[in-house]
Structures are given as C-alpha cells and as structure tokens.
C-alpha cells in the first residue's frame, strides 16, 4: 500500500479533510476525557507551526521533545514537521548528563518540554547548548516565578500563531506552501537509540519511508479510523512513534494519552484500545498482579478462577487459532468467557483488543499462551529503530512464543556466516545523525543494515529465531556456545526472577547474577511467614536462595535438551544485594542490562564466582533519585547448581 501524501503534516491535512469530525486525540484532564477531532488538531498544529516559525524555527532545524505522552508534545512534532524542522524526542526520565549528549549531538534550536522538572533539567545544561534559543513548556505549575526570558508556554505560542494567521492572510498561504512542498525524502524525525552498547546514536528516518512502512503494517493488521490506541510508551522510543504516531496518522485512528503515568491501568480500562502494544515486561507485571490478587481471594473464587484458566489453557489458544476442539470444550470455554475471561479482560482493559503486539525482549511461552488463551490476539514482532520497526512479524494463524515470525511485508533479510541478521526494509533509516562513520559501519555495501543480532531461520516454518546480540554470543573454553541472553530469558520466565546476568565467555563454566522480583518474592515471603526489612535482606534469605536454586536447575534441565545450548548450563550463581537500576547506569532507559558496565562494577563478585569461595563482599555506589550518592555494602552468598548431561530427543518429547 502506498500513500499519496509523503509527509506527516500532509497526512494530517488529508485526515482533517477526509474525516474532520472523527476523534484524533484524547487526553484525560481533570478527570474527563477531552477529545480533539482531526480538524481541531489540524487547526491547532497550523497555529502552533506558525508560532514556531515566528520564533525562528526553520527548515532543517531540530527541536527536542521531552516529556510524557501528552497532546501538546505530539502537536510539537507535527508542527515542527510542517515547517520541515526535525523533532527529536528525548527520554523524559534521563538525567541531565544523559540528556546533554542527545541535545548537543542533535544541536537543538528549541526544546518543547512537559513541566517544571524538565525545564529545570534543560536550564541546568543550558550553558553547554549554544544553539538552544527557546524552551517551551506544556504545564506551567511551579513556573510562574521563573524569570527566564527564553521560557515560553506552548499555549502562548499556539495563540500567537493563531492570531498571526488570522491577521495576515499572506501567512496562511506561506504555511500551506511549506506543508505542501514538504518532500518525502527529507528527514522526518531523529530517534535516539537507547544505547544498550555504549553511546546512543541518532537514527534519521525519512518521511516517505516512515509512511511506507506504516502503510504496510496498517494494511497487514487491517487498522482503520475506528481503531483506538493508548499512547503510554516513551515518546522517544520507536515503538511509540511507529505504533501510535505514524500508524495513527496513516490509518486516521484515535490516540489517547493517559492522565498520568500512575493511571495508565485505569485509563486503559476506560479507553478500551483495539490495538495494543507492550513489551513482555508489562504483560508479566499484569499477570503477576492478577495472580497475587487471586491468591488473596476466597477459596471458592480461587477454585473458579483456576478451573477456568485451566480450561482456557486447554482450548483457548486452539479456538483463537481456528483449530478444532471438542464441542464440550467449546461450551466450557464459552461459559468461562462469561464467568472469568470476559471480566478479567475488562479489568485489564483488553476487552476490545483486536491486535496486540509484544516485542523488545523474548516472551515466556507460558506468559504468551496465557494471554492468547483468554482470547487476546497477541503476536510477536522483531524490529529495530533502524528499520522503523518491523523486520519480522507474525501473521494471524502463525503465532508462536519461541520465534519472532516470518518476514514482514516488503522486507528482505539475509544472514552472515557468523549468524548476524541483515535486513532491508521499507522504513529503514537514512543514516545516523552527524555520525557518518557509524552509518558506514552499520550499512553493508549492497544496502543492507546490520542488526547486531544473531539468529537463524527455522527450516520447517521459515520463522526467524533471535538468539542474542551477535557480539555477546561467546564461547566457553570447551568450545561450547555461550549465548547469555538466551539463557537469561529462560531464567526470567520465572516470575520470581526479575533480572539475570550471565558470565562465561572465555571461562570454563557459566555463572550468573540474579535479581529477585520484589513483588513476587515479597508476596511469597508474606504467605510463608518470612520476615524481611529490605530488598537486600530478602535477597540474602536462605529460603529464597533455595527457591532460586531450584529455578536455575530447572533452567539447566531445559537447556540440556537443546544440543546447541546444553553447554551453557549455569554452575554457580548469586543473588545480587541490590536491584539493577538505570539511574546507576546498570540498565539502559529501556531496561536492558548493560553487560560490560555490570561486569566492571561487580568485578569482585565475578572473581568470587570463579574462584570457588562461598561468600564475597561488595560495596557499590548508588545514586538516589534526587541525585545524591550513597554506598551499599553487603556480603553475598554463592550457590552451586546441578549440571545435567545432554538429554536425548525422546526424553525431551
């Protein structure tokens, strides 16, 4: 599917003309969902664009967008694009130090930010940003007494622009010209990667490629103007920009912005999205919470719940896939839909979900089938910022937990000898902003993009399986393959394990750091009369160690069935005394572990894992939310686990 309109502002004007009265955007404010139609949005964005123009934003300039999912920030992107300027969304929770890299690298001329917190952050690094001329804010609370000439409210700018347009018909024509003359080959947005492996890079995406990619997936999932999404994922993440912004403008559906980060769950229930996207983590948290609440329910309710969940497990997925089930199964499932599944989906806000996606990390098979068995059409995709999202995607009827699916429409993929996945996609990026060297490294000569991920195609189905980051896949001294993430994901499928970090490349055996999940383990502790005062105390508890050891051994057993992975069984592990945290630099802002950094920071513990001692001391510096520093020291126990011999196929079946 191809679009006549080559830029997002052109699509916006098309939507305003075609479906002006349809809702385009909703935002819950003062407890009420406020709605803007496509014509409202077009009018506001035009005024805003004029306001930006009057303040000096020009074709090719960059403007940072920092904050949560709020209408005015989305309008900022549209308004900037009207002028041919380039929006640069920035992760709102990044600390000033991280932010400065992006703002400096992008050379932003203006910054549109959400609130006082972000204003303070930007002003604290202002002296290093010579290009920055205006800071625009959405929400004025606490800013009344700021005596800062470069600070403006977005409302002020929109009103100013509107007035100018009303006063001077010449400007209307000028603005129309700017929107119409926008070319698809121009850069539409720069999305900074989360920086799992070092500094983040600015991925430049061109308008026409963005729109082509979005057209493909809109057609693939049959999205239309009657759909509705809740935009709650970070603005700066490709997932939000693609799923909500790009697809929304292409298909003309309505995007709802939550009231605040804390209310997402309630907002989800009220909006009832038809298209839903979340990383596995979100699905996992939801399930954990449902299960914990069921544990606290009365015995008859528990019985009812577990009975029908069991029925769903047996028949639900088959019914969703259109496979045949016995008539009795059909009836029982229908009864379950009335008694359990329907109400549960309603509570979770999934009642109207037609298509749901999960991506970003591997999803546990049990978790995946749980949601599918309830009748939610949850699918997987594999993508990258550089691809403007889809590389592979699972079509209806070909859904599996352990693959990421066959190729998405119009995507080409090839594998290098080392197993690295290379792709060419409709939405693929133009290059890294101000980093020709990196661009050159990433693009092959025949126009493919290196993903850095190692994977293989499953021969019988043609589905792609991703093992790990190519550079993380190592070898033990025995020569056995060591794919850390593959094993870590298996560990993380246990609700009690929140995070795991494997070591083993170049060593004799595999060892592991574990982070327990405070919600799940805390609840377990409560039910088993284990008292604890802190994460650290709970993590060091002997019973917790025993439980985690059992999980690790289960994982080893599963690995022993896979000839390629059997060597990567975990011999020794420890439970870390603190949670890995993005503020301490241990995780990226998208919550992925930074292996190298962790290995450095916890070097004494790794030594202890390999030298056979039973205990090790460690002191780490932590940074609190307000920026102050402190130290945590602890004595951490190390436990050995059973290693299983390679099992034969018969056993596995």
């Amino acid at each position, binding site marked *: 599917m191809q679009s006549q309109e080559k830029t997002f502002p052109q699509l916006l004007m098309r939507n305003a003309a075609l479906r002006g009265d349809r809702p385009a955007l909703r935002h819950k*404010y*003062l*407890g*009420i969902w406020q709605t803007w139609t496509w014509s409202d949005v077009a009018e506001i964005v035009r005024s805003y664009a004029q306001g930006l123009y009057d303040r000096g934003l020009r074709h090719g300039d960059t403007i940072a967008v920092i904050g949560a999912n709020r209408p005015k920030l989305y309008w900022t992107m549209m308004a900037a694009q009207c002028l041919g300027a380039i929006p640069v969304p920035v992760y709102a929770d990044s600390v000033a130090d991280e932010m400065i890299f992006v703002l400096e690298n992008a050379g932003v001329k203006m910054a549109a930010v959400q609130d006082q917190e972000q204003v303070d952050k930007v002003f604290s690094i202002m002296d290093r940003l010579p290009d920055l001329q205006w800071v625009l804010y959405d929400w004025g*609370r*606490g800013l*009344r*007494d700021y005596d800062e000439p470069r600070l403006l409210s977005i409302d002020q700018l929109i009103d100013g622009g509107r007035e100018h347009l009303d006063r001077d018909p010449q400007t209307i024509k000028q603005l129309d010209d700017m929107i119409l003359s926008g070319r698809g080959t121009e850069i539409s947005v720069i999305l900074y990667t989360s920086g799992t492996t070092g500094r983040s890079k600015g991925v430049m995406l061109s308008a026409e490629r963005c729109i082509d990619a979005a057209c493909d997936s809109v057609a693939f999932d049959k999205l239309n103007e009657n759909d509705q999404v809740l935009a709650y994922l970070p603005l700066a993440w490709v997932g939000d920009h693609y799923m909500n912004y790009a697809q929304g403008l292409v298909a003309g559906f309505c995007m709802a912005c939550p*009231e*605040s980060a*804390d*209310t997402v769950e*309630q907002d989800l229930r009220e909006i009832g999205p038809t298209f839903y996207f979340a990383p596995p983590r979100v699905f996992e948290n939801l399930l954990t919470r449902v299960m914990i609440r069921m544990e606290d329910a009365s015995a008859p309710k528990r019985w009812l719940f577990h009975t029908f969940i069991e029925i769903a497990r047996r028949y639900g997925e088959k019914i969703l896939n259109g496979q045949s089930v016995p008539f009795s199964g059909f009836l029982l499932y229908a009864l379950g839909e009335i008694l359990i599944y329907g109400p549960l989906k309603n509570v979770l806000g999934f009642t109207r979900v037609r298509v749901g996606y999960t991506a970003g990390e591997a999803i546990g098979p049990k978790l995946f089938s749980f949601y599918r068995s309830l009748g939610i059409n949850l699918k997987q995709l594999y993508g990258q910022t550089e691809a403007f999202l889809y590389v592979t995607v699972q079509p209806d009827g070909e859904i599996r937990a352990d693959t990421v699916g066959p190729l998405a429409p119009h995507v080409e993929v090839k594998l290098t000898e080392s197993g690295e996945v290379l792709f060419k996609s409709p939405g693929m990026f133009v290059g890294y902003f101000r980093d020709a060297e990196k661009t050159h490294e990433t693009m092959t000569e025949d126009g493919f993009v290196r993903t850095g991920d190692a994977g293989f195609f499953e021969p019988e189905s043609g589905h792609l399986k991703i093992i790990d980051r190519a550079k993380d896949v190592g070898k033990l001294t025995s020569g056995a393959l060591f794919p850390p993430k593959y094993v870590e994901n298996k560990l993380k499928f246990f609700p009690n394990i929140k995070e795991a970090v494997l070591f083993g490349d170049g060593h004799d055996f595999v060892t592991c750091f574990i982070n327990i999940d405070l919600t799940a383990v805390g609840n377990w502790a409560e039910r088993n009369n284990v008292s604890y005062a802190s994460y650290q105390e709970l993590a060091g508890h002997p019973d917790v160690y025993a439980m985690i050891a059992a999980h690790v051994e289960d994982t080893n057993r599963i690995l022993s069935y896979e000839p390629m992975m059997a060597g990567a069984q975990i011999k020794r592990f420890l439970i870390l005394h603190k949670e890995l945290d993005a503020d301490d630099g241990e995780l990226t802002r998208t919550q992925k572990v930074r292996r190298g950094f962790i290995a450095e920071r916890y070097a004494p513990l790794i030594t202890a894992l390999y030298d056979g001692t039973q205990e090790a001391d460690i002191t780490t510096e932590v940074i609190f939310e*307000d920026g102050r520093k402190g130290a945590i020291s602890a004595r951490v126990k190390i436990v050995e686990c059973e290693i299983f011999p390679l099992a034969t196929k018969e056993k596995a079946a």
Partner: protein
Amino acid sequence: MMQTYHQIARGDTLLAVDHVSLSFGGVKAITDVSFDIRKGEIRAIIGPNGAGKTSMLNVINGFYHPQKGQITFKGLTRSRMRPSVAASQGIARTFQNVALFKGMSTLDNIMAGRTLKMHRNFFWQCLRHGPAMDEEIKHREFVEDIIDFLEIQAIRKVPVGKLPYGLQKRVELGRALAMEPDLLLLDEPMAGMNLEEKEDMSRFIVDVNQQYGTTIALIEHDMGVVMDLSDRVVVLEYGHKLADGTPDDVKANEDVIKAYLGVAH
C-alpha cells in the same frame, strides 16, 4: 452567614492571638500566650510533647474556648466561637491523626470539603438535575484541580481506608484545600512519614502557599522541615510562649536549646 471583613493585604496580621489562657480543670494547657500570623506566611508552632501546640490550634479553630484572652481573625475579635463558624470564616485544618471518611473515595472526601460552598437546598440536591447539578459540576472542577495539584489522580476512586498513610495525609490536605481557606492549620502533616513522603509533602505545602497564596500555620516535630519551610516560628513549652521569631532567631535562642536539648545539672 454574610459578614464583611477588612481587606487584609499580604504581610498584615491575619490572625492575632492575644493573651490566651486555657485550662482543663486544674491542668493549665496554655498560659497567657500571644502571637500573630501574617497573611501569606508559613508560621510554625513547635514545642516538646505536651507543650500545648494542638490545644493552640484547637483554640484557633474554635474547638476549645479559652478562659482568658481573645482571638482576632480578619479584624473580627472573638472569645467564643464554634468550629463550623471558624470554617465558614475561612479556617481549615488537618488533624494529627488522619480524620477522613474511611469508606468514601478520595474524590468524595475532597468534595466533602466543598460542602460549605454549596448553596442549593435539600430539594434541589435530591432532584440531582438543574441548578444543583450545575453547582456540583462547578465544585467538581475545583476538586479535580486539587486532585491534579496533589497528583492523586490514580487514587481518585479508591476508598481512602485502603490507602497508605502518606497518601491519606495528602487527601486530608486536599479536603482542607477544597474549602479555599484563608488560613490553613496543619497538625503534624508529616508525622509518621518516610523521607520521600516528607519531601513530597513539604513541596506541596510550599506550593499551596505560593500558588494559592494560602496562609499556613503548622505544627511539626521535624526541625529540619520546620526551619526550611516556615517564615516565622513560635515556640511553646508547658503552655508558655518561649520564643518567637525567624527560624534563625529561634535556633539561636538559649531557652529553646535548653527546652529541646536539656541542660546539664
């Protein structure tokens, strides 16, 4: 009740406590205490346990009637008054032990703070249409503003009995704010809170003071908080006034140091 008051400018005396004494039988809770609260300031009342701080607040909002002395609020002098009258004159308060309607939602609790501002009679209220509804919508908007201000959107519909203590305190502050008070009395707003909750609460108190221009009198034991937040501090001990002045003055006052730290005998 309609009464006209003098218009009081920022910095002028909003409330004056004049030689007030209060006793319960033979127990003297407050003895001859005088101080004033100026419009727009944050005024702290501190003192060791049993110093008469809460009694003082109870006198100010008309719950206790002092045997001697008088209180002047917005230019009107009084010696006896009921709490409801104090409330309608613009004095709101929170309590040392949270005093919310536990079974009601956050929203309903804060709406309760608007009761005095509702003017439609019982008949219209029952009808739930027409003028009473219009009025309710207007008040709801005000309350939603407070909810937004205190960042408690996520618990709007949750019964307050289910909320953690720190949030209950915040809801209580919200209910007091709903009265649009001229003088807000906070009785140990941070008692029993952890550091993070205290920081949040401090920020809200300062914001209330700056954004709504509300005059605040607060009792608090955390000296760090008191010295940071307040413009002026009055110190009580055994019902007597020990010191009165800016935080720095009070900190340097020898009597205060003696009362708080004790002296070597």
